[in-house]
């Protein structure tokens, strides 16, 4: 097992280097640069010498290979540089938003897991009954409705019905838990519903498959208590693909809630990501892509390790 874990861990390094090279090159292919966005696109006159000074200051006048080497050398020292837009260290820019995004991702994951697993199991057990149909409609509705749209509906609903709006400024949980939850619970529900829809459908189909396995029939024939069969034998096996879905969704949530963050005015990584791209802030975009890639790879790694732990056949192959 230890050898398997080390091997999987080391595989993360070339993947991250590949991502770093790819994002560096892709960003340079997109037209426009940070100086142009900052000074030319405002509709006011900007002289060429200002543009030159700013480009030189950011190192954009250097050859591409030199910019790449500088960036890679920085990465080796865990120095991500400074944002080309604000001039602030990138670690500072990310740190500011990371707590919010992490908390929202965890809350949405909790909502999704708490909804998806019981609903998926019940739907599988009551296949083709009204209970199953209700669960399927609930999950299809969750898939069909974009989270941001649901968020807009929530805000309008609060405003029109209750004449109330959630807080619009982030307060850390340890400063004021009530204020913090009053702001984050709504986006967590909006996102959690869509997220749970994916996981519910996955739980249902995995449970249906497992419930038809010979060992479940054997357990039933032996007269084992149904709850025990479900929890110890069926659910444990059915949860493998569900874990993958939940893990990947979690990684996505960390940097992918762009529009939902806008709707609820959340100062998170998703919004920062979009702004970094719109501003052509190469250094910040590169760091964010690397961060999200790292989270994806890490989640995949942990899922693989969990798979191997749950199913020993995997590590033996």
């Amino acid at each position, binding site marked *: 097992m230890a050898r398997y874990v080390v091997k999987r861990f080391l595989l993360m390094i070339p993947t991250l280097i590949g991502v770093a090279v790819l994002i560096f090159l892709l960003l340079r292919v997109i037209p426009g640069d940070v100086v142009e966005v900052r000074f030319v696109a405002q509709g006011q006159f900007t002289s*060429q010498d200002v543009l030159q000074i700013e480009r030189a200051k950011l190192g954009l006048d250097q050859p591409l290979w030199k910019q790449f080497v500088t960036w890679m050398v920085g990465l080796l020292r865990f120095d991500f540089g400074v944002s080309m837009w604000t001039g602030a260290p990138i670690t500072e820019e990310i740190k500011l938003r990371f707590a919010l995004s992490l908390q929202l991702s965890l809350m949405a994951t909790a909502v999704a897991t708490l909804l998806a697993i019981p609903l998926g199991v019940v739907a599988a057990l009551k296949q083709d009954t009204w209970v199953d149909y209700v669960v399927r409609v609930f999950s299809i509705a969750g898939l069909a409705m974009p989270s941001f749209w649901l968020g807009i509906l929530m805000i309008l609903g609060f405003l029109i019905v209750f004449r109330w709006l959630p807080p619009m400024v982030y307060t850390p949980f340890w400063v004021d838990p009530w204020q913090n939850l009053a702001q984050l619970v709504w986006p967590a529900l909006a996102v959690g519903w869509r997220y749970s829809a994916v996981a519910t459908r996955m739980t249902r189909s995995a449970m249906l498959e497992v419930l038809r396995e010979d060992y479940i029939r054997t357990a039933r024939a032996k007269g084992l208590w149904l709850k025990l069969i479900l929890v110890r034998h069926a659910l444990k096996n059915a949860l493998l693909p569900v874990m993958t879905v939940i893990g990947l969704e979690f990684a996505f949530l960390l940097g992918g809630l762009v529009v939902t963050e806008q709707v609820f005015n959340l100062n998170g990584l998703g919004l920062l990501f979009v702004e970094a791209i*719109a501003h052509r802030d190469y250094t910040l975009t590169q760091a964010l892509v690397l961060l999200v890639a790292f989270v994806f790879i890490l989640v995949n790694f942990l899922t693989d390790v969990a798979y191997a732990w749950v199913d020993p056949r995997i590590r033996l192959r």
Partner: protein
Amino acid sequence: MRLNKGLLVLALTALLAGPAGAQEKPRYGGELVYTVPSEMPSYDGHREQTFGLIHPIAPHYNTLLRVDPTDPTGTKPAPDLAESWTASKDGLTYTFKLRRGVKFHDGSEMTSKDVKASYDKIIFPPAGVASVRKATYTVVEVVEAPDPYTVRFRLKWPAGAFLQSLASPWNFIYKADILAKDMHWYEKNIMGTGPFVFVEHVKGSHWVGKKNPNYWDKGKPYLDGYRAMFVKAHATQVAMVRGERSMIQFRSFTPADREALTAALGPKIKFQESAWDCILMVAINHTKKPFDDKRVRKALTLALDRWEASKTLSKIAIVKEVAGVQVPGTPYATPPEELKKLAGYWPDIEKSRAEARRLLKEAGIPDGFSFTFKNRGTPMPYEPMAIWLIDQWRKVGLNVKQEVVEAAAYYGSVLRKPDAFQVAMDFQCGYIVDPDLDIYKFVSNDKNPDNYSYYTDRTLDDLYVKQSRAQDPEERKKYIREFERRLLDDEVHVLMTLQWHRIVPMSAKVHGWQVTPSHYLNNQLDTVWLSQ
């Protein structure tokens, strides 16, 4: 007789809103909470161009002059740190007397040394320091500080709009000692003389300022403080006003927002409106055939029914006033009756379109001629405006395809590349209404690379210089009219669409603020007060 709508709007606004305390006695206290749809990259006003800096940061600073906060045209220079000024007879020397007893927020006294250092940074920045408005002050020979309370600007030639240029909302007066140590200090720090002291900036979230108890203008400011919330999503900004979480948004809402908020909030909400010193125009690439032919360019403008569009588009988009090269209702704007003599502004649209078809035929352009119109991927108001343009051109037999390019890539991949487009949407927004700033865009491309129609017109260049140097307003007006006629009618180098229209939503509690045509003006907040 058609009314001058721009003037009417400005006059009505002035009547309805009134200056600070014109009707009621200002009340002290309270925190003004407002949304800002953009955020500043750095804190240095001398370096940046976005209103995302002005809206939260202007309250920390003073400028030498300011635009009179009660003037709805946003064009009258008024004292700020300078309490009076004189100009020499030859117009080459301006001398300003500074207020005494003005303190920076650290308690040190502001003197002419600080004004000189700030203007030297703007006009003569040292190597490696970017000053985006340096070109505006090429007329300045030297800035002098003969004594602690006198500042003198010596000019190379007389400039009719020099005082207006000193009322720029960007020209914050910084502390000389700080600049002497580090020219970049103000990019990340605040130290001004303004009515509010800096408290906090949480990036991506909010900016907070509190009342400066030692403010030089005794009795001001009225507010205890302010909180600017950075909210990018438009729907959220509207929801915050509707939910009374935001008292004002200083840029603009849309006509649809105005209707929805009025219906929802009734007397709790009010709006101030003005013609806006921003305009979408059509860049016609003179290096591309057949657009090098002025008959074709003229046909493009003659096809447009601007007067009708003013009525219809203003219901769905942030555009309204029919305009030439100056914001309607401001001192150098062409009155509508005169504007109607220019090609594309004729009141009889059928006659205008018949002439357009004739010119196209004469230029050898076949019916159904196709070209691509490139547009910037910014929905409001680019999208409705492009749809309208395409529809209008179709009415004279032109078949136009729209290609939308991502906003951030637009300048780099379209406008700044003459090979990349035939006809494209262009945009200009001014921070103060003044011909020097507003029409500089239209001088020849070799003088201003921001001229994206890529033409050389020495007559226009000459007229620009003449209007800029004219001391007499009437003489200046004459040159501006000539400039406008040549630009929009004789040569049709560009097409003006409609002037943008500013709709500022504000809680009924907010008083003492006057809308102007520029969303960069009137953000010191010293005159603003809350009635509850």
